[in-house]
């Protein structure tokens, strides 16, 4: 078999796979629309930026991409993203742990719930950034302040979702376990906890999104590294392409974190995800 005939065969097979099947055609069409969408907006953006003439204040995509690739190549944007991600991760993990613990306690014990409810319902409406000034007074401008704020951002969302998860456990499941002779401890670990996992994951995913908002503002106000700091430090020199690059990096980081979290849930939490069951 010659190379050309092999190539031809491959092309033919590809052609049949893409154009020949209905699903392939649908996919091709979606891809075409995506391409059209990205291309048209980039062209419009480039044109608008040049038409306004204020290239410094509203840079065209070519300038932004140039700056971004420079920042990626010299590693500075990667380093800044690493600092931000590290802060989010530590605050997020501490906050999630506290939130799950508190949520499980509040969900299973009516007494704990009544005792803790006023605080949870009051504090969850106080935006994390409102605590920035007091925390700054108490802990200074160090890493503690930023991680504490991210922990605060995470705790209540996870707590409330965990409580919702515990309350949503089908009562027949717990009853059946009791009938089969399980004690309270076994019901908790084998029924309540696994059944509330999907809610806990949902809460953590929401909290992750909010943590990004907190970390950026905290880095803008008091930090000397991270993506938020990159934005404010470029503000002084009016380096708008650099600000845009940081914003793009934030979007990419947020998107990647969300996808990673979802993949982790699918990989390790698959057995806890909601499925229709005969007992519900």
């Amino acid at each position: 078999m010659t190379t050309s005939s092999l190539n031809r065969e491959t092309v033919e097979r590809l052609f049949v796979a893409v154009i020949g099947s209905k699903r392939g055609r649908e996919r091709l069409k979606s891809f075409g629309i995506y391409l059209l969408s990205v291309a048209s907006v980039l062209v419009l953006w480039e044109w608008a930026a040049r038409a306004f003439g204020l290239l410094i204040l509203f840079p065209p995509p070519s300038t932004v991409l140039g700056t971004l690739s420079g920042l990626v190549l010299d590693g500075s944007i990667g380093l800044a993203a690493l600092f931000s991600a590290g802060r989010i991760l530590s605050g997020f993990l501490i906050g999630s742990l506290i939130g799950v613990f508190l949520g499980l306690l509040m969900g299973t014990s009516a007494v704990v719930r009544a005792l803790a409810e006023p605080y949870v319902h009051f504090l969850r409406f106080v935006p994390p950034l409102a605590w920035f000034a007091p925390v700054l007074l108490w802990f200074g401008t160090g890493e503690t302040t930023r991680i504490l704020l991210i922990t605060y951002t995470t705790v209540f969302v996870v707590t409330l979702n965990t409580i919702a998860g515990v309350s949503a456990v089908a009562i027949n499941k717990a009853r059946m376990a009791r009938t089969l002779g399980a004690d309270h401890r076994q019901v908790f670990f084998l029924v309540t906890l696994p059944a509330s996992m999907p809610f806990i994951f949902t809460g953590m995913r929401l909290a992750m999104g909010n943590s990004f908002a907190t970390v950026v503002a905290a880095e803008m106000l008091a930090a000397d590294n991270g993506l938020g700091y990159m934005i404010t430090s470029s503000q002084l020199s009016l380096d708008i392409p650099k600000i845009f690059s940081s914003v793009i990096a934030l979007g990419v980081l947020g998107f990647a974190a969300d996808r990673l979290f979802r993949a982790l849930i699918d990989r390790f939490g698959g057995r806890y995800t909601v499925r229709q069951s005969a007992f519900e």
Partner: protein
Amino acid sequence: MGTARVRTRLSDRNRWNWSSRLGRIFLSGISVAAALTVWQLLSTTVLISIVFPPFTSTLRALTEGIASGELLGHLSITIRRVIFGFLIGSAAGAFIGLLMGSFGFVRKFLDPYINFLRFVTPIAWITPAVIWFGVNEGSKLFLIIYATVFIVLLNTMAGVIHIHRDRLRMANAFGARSWQIFLYITLPGAVGFILTGMRVALGNSFMTVIGAEILSASSGLGYLIYTSRVFFEADVMFAAILVLGLLGFATDRLFATVQHRVFWRYQAGR
């Protein structure tokens, strides 16, 4: 008889205990009273009261702030910012969401941007926003609209997509035109989802407005909290935080009431 037995069981359950309504209120009351006492004692004895003000001086700062009108002035500015941005953002989000839900082309065309921008936190845009829309209300309005639009949009789209296909088919079979299907089936079916998105967005708007007021503003509760730091007025900070928590709680409850009373026909998922 069966019913009689059920009644006794029910009344048994209503018996006064820790998990009854009264019991819970009692426990919550005890908990709050205990925390306030501990706070007061700690801040007057162990901790430095200038950076950790006792409850009584927080209350004094609160009453003084209300009496002088300073606190209420900042409060009304923050509320105004949130309401305008939230309403414009919700309207835009619902509109674009309905379009994206109804037309596959629009959905695919806008999808890359929505899925990128919703991961960029509103606060990250503050510098470009200040440069484009000025340090005054424009930039804050932009940030709150931005914080609102994507959540409402995604929820609206989900609402439109989740409408049961049989309903659309039935309307079609009865000869409804496409605008009638939109007006009588798609829109009512999406209202519940729109409201759910708006309620989440309201919380995010508060988060964003405080950040924006701290970073670039000369008024509003966020500004008040942050400038109090300079003068070491921790009691004013605490008073403002107290007001913020109550405000968030009140607006959320108000929204939930409106959602359940006024729009009860359109509960999500019905």
